């Protein structure tokens, strides 16, 4: 599976303070009392705290920052951005 970090073309690792990366939840369990998921980032798997996204489950895409899931991504809204440039140029 192809993996591109949140930032393509960057040789250095980016553990930046505002970068958040989309990943897909494999399963959800518990680690040290915190709701924790195994998340797949295009082949790289990491443990991610999903304490504040209680609705997230296996198969959901989450936005992850500093080992912490910030939100479940909305696929419908994600496609709307792409539709904007393929539409008639009207208001996005």
């Amino acid at each position: 599976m192809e993996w591109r970090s949140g930032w393509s073309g960057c040789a250095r690792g980016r553990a930046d303070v505002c970068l958040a990366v989309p990943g897909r939840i494999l399963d959800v369990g518990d680690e040290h009392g915190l709701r924790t998921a195994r998340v797949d980032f295009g082949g790289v798997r990491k443990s991610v705290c999903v304490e504040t996204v209680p609705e997230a489950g296996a198969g959901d895409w989450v936005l992850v920052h500093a080992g912490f899931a910030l939100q479940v991504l909305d696929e419908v809204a994600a496609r709307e951005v792409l539709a904007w440039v393929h539409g008639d140029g009207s208001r996005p």
Partner: protein
Amino acid sequence: MRFVDEYRDPERILRAAAEVKRRATRAWRIMEVCGGQTHTILASGLDQLLEGSVELLHGPGCPVCVTSVETLDRALALAARSDVTLVSFGDMLRVPGSHGDLFGARARGADVRVVYSPLDALELAVKRPQREIVFLAVGFETTAPAVASAIQSARKRDVANFSVLVAHVRVPPALIAIRSSPDCRVDAFLAAGHVCTVMGTSEYEPIARELSLPIVVTGFEPLDLLQGTALAVEQLERGEARVDIQYRRAVRPEGNVHARALVREIFEVVDRPWRGIGVVPGGGLALSPSYADFDAELRFPERAASAPQEPGVCRAGDVLRGALRPPECAAFGRSCTPERPLGAPMVSSEGACAAYFRYRLADVSSEGAP
């Protein structure tokens, strides 16, 4: 759908840029306030694509860059203690304080470490109970929930050797400070998407209304930034000023209510000095009194030996307010480089100077080097 690659497609980017240019009847100045966005703009050449239609200004979008010299000096003083392991995100280690940086402290024998997550710092404390683990917490509202979670978890697990030096900053008050400065050139803001993923948009509504300023909550990929710019231009052309959300796949108007509740429990809003901008009223987060036992400032008496000093030639403050483009600084690429930075914006992988150095140094050199 992979949520990344689709937004980097060159054909879509060109069409979107054409759409922005079609909408703009004058050269609007639009400021982004997240370093991740700054890097996307320069890496993809969005500023060049929009040249003549829209000028993209870069704001103080880098928490590492606005962390005060006082805080860095405090961190350096703590790192000098033989019982302390100082932990932070990688970028913080190379930011110059008054006298050197944390990398230098590590070279001199201090125990300074880098983590990806504040939760990793907590695990380090659990594994090494004989050490005092101090986490230097920098970041916008994006990072605050992870830090809050680590602190809450430390309380529940009774981890006594974990504490936090809190340098968190809040974006909305800084927008007001930038807009209020006499040399402000901003017509509209692109607000940082991930900050609003956590916080939502409620704090931005009164700012847009009272300052008559369009604010568009925008994502981080090239297509996101062009669509955000198009939405801002549309408001400007119509004389409107409200909050729009471009980054709807990740931002709900209410934000993440669970994360906000967590942040509210652990932190309280305080005034905070921003490097380059000065004290921003309500511009920071500090530990709330009920979590004061995790406050490294209270746990350790160490203070810097001398008053904080900014490097003289560095014009980071002007860069952070969008008043100066990095290549216009006399030190840029000459006495100041990512390897030997004079100021934080050249250090951080989110800093505006580092972005220009990485993506535009060739252009600058060809304009006529000394």
